[in-house]
């Protein structure tokens, strides 16, 4: 089963932390990534550029509407993601809890529809 871990974080809070702390967190991220790669659980993952770089695109009545910024104004924004291979939700939850940003923000764990039991029973 593949699960995506959407990493939501408060951007001002992230920006406010000291450089040493930030480096420490990046180090933790690299460690987690190595661990996942070594155990064959890593599929993809990356930090995202700040929300200031976001562009939202909608097509309505055949017309393209482009706006500056993320799709919703919330306190916490999508700041990165991991795509992992896990046996079940328990294993996925364990991985999510190891993501450093889980301590400040929220990790939303969602199974991918691909490869899931597809019969609607």
């Amino acid at each position, binding site marked *: *089963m593949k699960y995506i871990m959407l990493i939501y974080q408060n951007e001002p809070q992230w920006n406010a932390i000291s450089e040493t702390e930030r480096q420490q967190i990046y180090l933790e991220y690299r460690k987690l990534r190595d661990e996942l790669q070594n155990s064959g659980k890593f599929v993809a993952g990356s930090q995202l550029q700040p929300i200031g770089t976001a562009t939202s695109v909608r097509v309505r009545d055949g017309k393209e509407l482009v706006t500056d910024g993320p799709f919703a104004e919330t306190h916490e924004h999508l700041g990165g993601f991991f795509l992992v291979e896990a*046996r*079940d*939700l*328990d294993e996925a*939850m364990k991985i999510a809890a190891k993501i450093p940003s889980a301590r400040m923000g929220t990790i939303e*764990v*969602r*199974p991918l529809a691909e*490869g*899931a*039991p*597809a*019969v609607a*029973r």
Partner: protein
Amino acid sequence: MLLREYATLAGMSNPSETLERVFREEYGRIIATLIRIAGSFDLAEESLQEAFASAVSRWEEEGVPRNPGAWLTTVAHRKLIDSLRREKTKIDKQTELEHEARRVESLQEPPSFDDSTEYPDDRLRLIFTCCHPSLSSEVQVALTLRTLGGLTTTEIAHAFLVPEPTLAQRLVRAKSKIRLAQIPYEVPSLDILGERLKSVQAVIYLIFNEGYSPTVGNSLVRRDLCAEAIRLSRVLCELLRDEPENFGLLALMLLQGSRRDARINKDGELVTLEEQDRSLWNRAEIEEGLRLVERALQTGRVGSYQIQAAIAAVHAEAPSVAETDWRQIVALYRELMLINSSPVVALNHAAAVAMYEGLESGLRLIEEAAGDLDQYYLYHASRADLLRRLNRLSDAAAAYTRALSLTTNTVEQQYIRKRLSEVGL
């Protein structure tokens, strides 16, 4: 849902009585095994319902089998395999659904389930899946009652005063999350077992409290909930014998439940512990509760349910309020506060101190706990009770009035109104 109707249709003859009993007692056990085999809650439920339907006609004609539970399991298992095969035929035509096909291929011919076949682990798996932390607590409760308890959607909706379609939808969503997010159907590994067990215990206690807290109407159904929580708790004790908190929880519910007939008077009004007629307390439940709490405490691994049970035990052993060992109760609440710093515990501690050291000390403690508790019914009600006993009647009236504005429970409202009239308002 089906069984009650079948039983009524078939009259009160022996087979239907047996069926009703088997349904209540064995539903959780049978469904747990079927879910493991089917890998699906819905398929398991369907086949068990079909098995119950054939039991209605077959038992009427051929008599009740020697082991009705095993009979039902075997028949349901055959029906399950049939429907999985039908599904497989469908799937063969759509080869992209390999996942399902693999699952079906791995199935063997159904073994026959006789007396010797016991799968205690299945019920444990089921308990932990139903109470998985990724499900909301209302969903955990509904799913536990539906699958382990064998209660119908109608019964659960009625007990929790939720519209039936809402509850049905909640169950559908839960089952679909279990399937799609792959919530495991297994006993959690040791490193998380302790945490997971706490959420199972919390669900059971929530079910009990829903039945125990007095709300007008539906009182029979709600008593059912208390009985159901106690039954589930017995299952948990049976399956995980080395967990003293399981026994603490069972003891607590037995001891609290033993007071239910004394707790509400003929007019449906709440009667406080000090005014209760203690001869109405259920002695058998008290005896069992006392034995269990003692046994749990002997393990030396104290937990919150055990301490609460010990407090209930001190009350249960006292012939009257005056003869209660308040010193012991205060000490137990102190210990409880170290584990559980909830406002209810702090208020109960203060109330016990009021009984042991004096009303003034109790009142001081309650007022120290204020702050966060200002929106809390119980805070104002407890404070008002102490003020009333201290004869500070106008202060008491003000506190009762505030409490009244904070509760929606009609029995509690009635109780406060009665007190208000006593203090002269």
